[in-house]
């Protein structure tokens, strides 16, 4: 029995499911890809998924703190991307390689 309301009435659950799907896509990206930069991008995807659920919860609870959390998450994500890319660039400049398997050969 297909309930048409599922398609016509958008509620919190829809946003949460969307967020879950995006999160798992990001997770697949992190698990499967070998390029370090694409893995960083997949992490950004996961953070975006989390942001959607933050804002959805915030709206359906009538609480603005969800949006503030998203603000903070965005800041941290941008900082993470900056550091991650800086590391990737310095490794690439030296070894011409961004494959994640290669990184385990690096020693201190």
């Amino acid at each position, binding site marked *: 029995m297909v309930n048409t309301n599922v398609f016509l009435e958008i509620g919190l659950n829809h946003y949460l499911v969307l967020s879950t799907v995006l999160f798992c896509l990001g997770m697949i990206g992190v698990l499967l890809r070998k390029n370090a930069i694409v893995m960083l991008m997949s992490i950004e995807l996961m953070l975006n998924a989390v942001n959607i659920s933050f804002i959805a919860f915030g709206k359906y609870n009538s609480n603005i703190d969800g949006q*503030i959390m998203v603000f903070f998450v965005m800041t941290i994500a941008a900082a993470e991307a900056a550091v991650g890319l800086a590391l990737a660039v310095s490794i690439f400049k030296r070894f011409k390689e961004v494959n994640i398997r290669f990184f385990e050969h690096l020693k201190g």
Partner: protein
Amino acid sequence: MTADAFLFWFLALSTVAGGVMVVSLTNPIYAALSLAFTMVSVAAVFVTLEAFFVAGVQLIVYAGAVMVLFVMVLMLFDLKHEVESFARGKVTGAIKLLAAGLLAGLLIGAILYSSSGELGSSAPQAAAQIDSTKTLGYRLFTQHIFAFEALGVLLLVIAVGVVALSRSKGGTHGKH
């Protein structure tokens, strides 16, 4: 109501399609461009959730800054179409996919199971009389003021670290 539903499904479709392309495209530049598209779609999803300011910030910070950085770095690297862009091993790959699918199933199941609670079905209450951006600013600078200052310091530290990283000529043994 129908227009909202249509908008949601359209945005959900474009968001997920963008996400799938990020994961599956072998050329990193195309993956980055589709991630930018996903970011814009997510900003639109924020708009449907009435988080207008955060949607704008999503556009400025994520789509306009972070993804531009990614695309620029990929162009600097000049990474061509990779032959081996996915991890080796069919079995492990299948297990990883299965794990992600299982997590998705578990989460969706949990969401649907808990939807009978007071959160899921309750319609959002009437929007607050005050402008939501002003409320956001008010909360940010009263309740979360220390987190805000800490983020300022964090950004400073990151700037210093990044400049230092780009300064180092690579190599792992001392200075050059």
